[in-house]
């Protein structure tokens, strides 16, 4: 009996349920899609050699999913609350018919379970199919090999989705029971009668406020684009953000009054059809929705900016990577191992073996060759020693500038010895990389550094002409500032400083700190190179088995692994951004939709009057459509304007990573995502509202 009643009720209020159901289905689908990412084929193809990055991504998605679940939970409770409010009167009637609270609770419980179950199934269904499409998108974005397409279903993600949503539905049930238990019959029966006082704003004030708002926003826009060079700290960025928020609120506070004033002065437009009514609706309602409109606008702004910037981030990243990785291979190992060292954790003294010590007195190529590596696989080999002199520390390099530096960056370890390379050794590497080569006189030294804050520090020392005295000989800096250059490849500028000294600099043998090797693979095609890569990084080759057994530690970077790693990293960034962006989008659309539906119930009376004075259904629906369309468009339009500047800011903030040429496809993708979800909610709102205003009193 109860079950039948529940099904009947749901059928009756199916259009009310539309938004709720839509939100649940989208929530479930998105949740499933992103939690199944790791098992998607495209993902496997992309990140074959970056297992730990995938691991990282799964962990991060896991943490973020908890956060997302909380957002969705609140959203679902909010949407559900709307439904309960809509039906207060219905429950009141049940109660007058002698139905107890407990029974009503049971009806609602059944409905919640029914809707939950249905939405879970539909959502999973949508999610599974949408994730196949996402795979294709991923493949496009990351150039993964998708020639062998397979259908993927992630059981893990499915179970996780069910568990999380079961918890959310449980929260909804508890919430509902609490709400119902607080109801009083009289309040239920009179629930629909609620008169709210209309406050009309002075149009002149509206116009002035709008002008102020536009100025504030304009200034904030200017600050994040033209004035961006001043925004170098987080605190300074707070200014434009706060201005943006205030500006947005003020725009929504004043906009409707302004529009009304504008259109009123154009009698032809104002006195046409139901225009007057729609505008007044807008003016009346927007007053009470300033805050929610602002929040929705800002959420949309974040969504648009994050989606389009992060999508374009990916596109440009791989381009720059080519330039940042001029050689195929970098290997290095510690030179001159001592007799023993103290284990950091246990405090034990560990003795090095003779083999380890012997190896450490020879360059990297020795370790390769001696342990059976086929050196023909490599070409363009450059090998250099890297030195460190205990008494030549950063502090020494900074000279008179040290006190200033210390005051500015107190945390740095200034007693660290400098990394020192002979000029001719460096030039060999530079020649291989295609970087600039340098020369030094016998009493000169110079510093290579490209890590921004370190450059600043070191320039201080160089400018003050710090003289270094080693072995009784004096050296002075050739240049007053750091030059760019590096020996180890990386994805970004992270060289904190290399000192170059003349070739006749007398090094003691114990100053030798590391052996460094740079080389290219002796292969023509990508495939050949990847095979060679495998002989270096893989554990299966004879060579790697040998050094593993002997406990010889050689570290390094390869071009392929750097590119893979950063691809994987940007994959993570992009997916998390899309995940959060879409959830934000769903949240803001759903809130907007529910607010509009609530208002439609309040507006019912007004549309009834319109009907009574002669408006037909077509006119009424048209007025309703326009009213809802304006409410949906206003926050979107302002968000788009915000985003134009926000994206530009985002791009210049990640200047080295993304460029504006790559923006167009991401913007198109963003438009499709936002248009789709926002459009769905708009449609559901319009149909639901139409249903509400059609109802008989």
């Amino acid at each position, binding site marked *: 009996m109860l079950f039948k009643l529940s099904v009947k009720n749901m059928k009756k209020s199916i259009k009310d349920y539309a938004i709720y159901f839509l939100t649940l289905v989208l929530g479930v689908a998105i949740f499933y899609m992103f939690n199944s990412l790791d098992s998607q084929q495209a993902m496997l193809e992309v990140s074959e050699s970056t297992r730990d990055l995938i691991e990282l991504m799964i962990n991060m998605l896991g943490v973020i999913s908890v956060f997302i679940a909380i957002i969705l939970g609140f959203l679902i409770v909010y949407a559900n609350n709307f439904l309960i409010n809509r039906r207060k009167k219905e429950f009141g009637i049940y109660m007058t018919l002698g139905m107890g609270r407990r029974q009503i609770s049971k009806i609602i419980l059944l409905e919640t379970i029914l809707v939950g179950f249905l939405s879970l199934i539909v959502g999973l269904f949508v999610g599974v199919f949408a994730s196949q499409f996402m795979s294709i998108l991923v493949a496009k974005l990351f150039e993964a090999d998708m020639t062998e397409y397979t259908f993927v279903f992630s059981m893990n993600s499915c179970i996780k989705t069910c568990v999380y949503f079961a918890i959310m539905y449980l929260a909804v049930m508890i919430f509902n029971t609490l709400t119902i238990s607080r109801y009083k019959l009289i309040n239920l029966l009179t629930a629909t009668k609620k008169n709210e*006082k*209309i406050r*009309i704003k002075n149009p002149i004030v509206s116009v002035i406020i709008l002008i102020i708002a536009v100025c504030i926003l304009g200034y904030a826009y200017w600050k994040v684009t033209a004035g961006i060079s001043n925004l170098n700290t987080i605190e300074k960025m707070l200014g434009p953000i706060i201005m943006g928020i205030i500006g947005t609120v003020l725009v929504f506070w004043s906009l409707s009054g302004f529009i009304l004033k504008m259109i009123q002065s154009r*009698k*032809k437009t*104002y*006195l*046409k*059809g*139901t*225009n*007057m*009514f729609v505008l*007044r*609706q807008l*003016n*009346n309602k927007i007053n009470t929705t300033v805050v929610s409109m602002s929040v929705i606008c800002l959420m949309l702004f974040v969504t648009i900016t994050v989606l389009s910037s992060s999508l374009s981030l990916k596109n440009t990243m791989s381009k720059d990577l080519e330039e940042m990785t001029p050689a195929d291979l970098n290997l290095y190992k510690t030179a001159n191992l001592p007799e023993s060292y103290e284990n950091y954790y246990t405090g034990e003294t560990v003795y090095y073996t003779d083999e380890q010590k012997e190896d450490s007195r020879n360059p990297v190529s020795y370790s390769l060759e001696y342990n059976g590596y086929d050196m023909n696989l490599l070409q363009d080999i450059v090998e250099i020693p890297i030195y460190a002199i205990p008494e030549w520390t950063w502090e020494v390099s900074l000279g008179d500038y040290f006190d200033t530096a210390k005051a500015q960056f107190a945390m740095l370890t200034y007693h660290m010895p400098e990394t020192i390379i002979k000029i001719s050794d460096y030039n060999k590497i530079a020649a291989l990389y295609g970087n600039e080569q340098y020369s030094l006189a016998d009493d000169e030294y110079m510093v290579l550094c490209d890590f921004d804050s370190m450059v600043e520090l070191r320039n201080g020392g160089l400018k003050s002409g710090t003289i270094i005295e080693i072995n009784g000989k004096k050296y002075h800096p050739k240049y007053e500032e750091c030059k760019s250059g590096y020996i180890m490849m990386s994805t970004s500028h992270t060289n904190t400083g290399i000192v170059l000294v003349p070739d006749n600099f007398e090094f003691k043998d114990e100053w030798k700190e590391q052996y460094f090797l740079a080389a290219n693979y002796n292969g023509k095609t990508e495939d050949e190179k990847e095979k060679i890569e495998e002989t270096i990084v893989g554990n299966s080759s004879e060579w790697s088995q040998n050094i593993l057994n002997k406990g010889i530690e050689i570290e390094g970077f390869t071009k392929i692994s750097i590119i893979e790693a950063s691809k994987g990293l940007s994959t993570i960034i992009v997916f998390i951004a899309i995940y959060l962006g879409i959830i934000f989008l769903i949240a803001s659309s759903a809130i907007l939709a529910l607010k509009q539906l609530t208002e439609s119930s309040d507006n019912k009376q*007004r549309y009834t*009057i*319109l009907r*009574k*004075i*002669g*408006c*037909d*259904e*077509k*006119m009424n629906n048209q007025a309703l459509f326009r009213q809802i369309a304006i409410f949906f468009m206003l926050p979107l339009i302002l968000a788009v304007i915000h985003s134009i500047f926000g994206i530009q800011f985002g791009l210049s903030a990640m200047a080295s990573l993304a460029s504006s040429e790559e923006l167009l496809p991401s913007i198109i993708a963003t438009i499709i995502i936002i248009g789709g979800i926002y459009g769905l909610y708009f449609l559901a709102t319009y149909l639901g509202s139409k249903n509400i205003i059609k109802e008989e009193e």
Partner: protein
Amino acid sequence: MMGYVLEVKNVDKYYGNKSNLTKAISGISFNVEYGEFVGIMGASGSGKTTLLNCISTIDRVTAGEILIDHQDVTKLKGNSLNKFRREKLGFIFQDFNLLDTLTAYENIALALTIQKVNANEIDKRVQEVAEKLEITDILQKYPYQISGGQKQRVASCRAIITNPKIVLADEPTGALDSKSARQLLEAFESLNQKLGATILMVTHDAFTASYADRIIFIKDGKIFNELIKGNDTRKQFFEKIIEVQTLLGGDLNDVI
């Protein structure tokens, strides 16, 4: 103009189903001439509103014909029905039915804008009618800023501004105090006499009814009596009404 603006012929209106049938109206017939001011009186539940709703096409008759301006409204459907209502009928309701978000001016103008009347003409006509009903100075006010009587006059302006063939008013004074009621009825009188508007007014109040030219009494869904003012003064007419009311019996002072 020749003939009748309204002809009600043998109209029945039943509510409910076979097991629980309410005959709200049964076999009612009467005519209204152009420029007439007709009142319909009856006790609460006698079927006045039902009759008015049938005439105004808000409700459908069970049987019978209703001709407005020689057109059978019971046969109209969909868009032509809406168009007919918009152009030929004016409504005044007990609870005003003004849009709270619109000013008085806009409430009146709305009746014209939905008929796609030219903007300049709208302004002219609103001013004209507002002057006749003496509400020029409150045109820019919102409904919550004006009294009940003023609201009803605004509603009356809205009803007649489209030059309807007939104005239908259901208990127009029902929510007004006696002074406002008197002002409104005087306004009706002048609409009727100066603008030649045809008015059909439903009321249960004898004083309100005494402003009409002719009164049709209804009891239990049937016509019970008819009174014509003729050359009587309003006071005399009022007394006649009271007489019929006593005849009718029942508690007429019950508000619906």
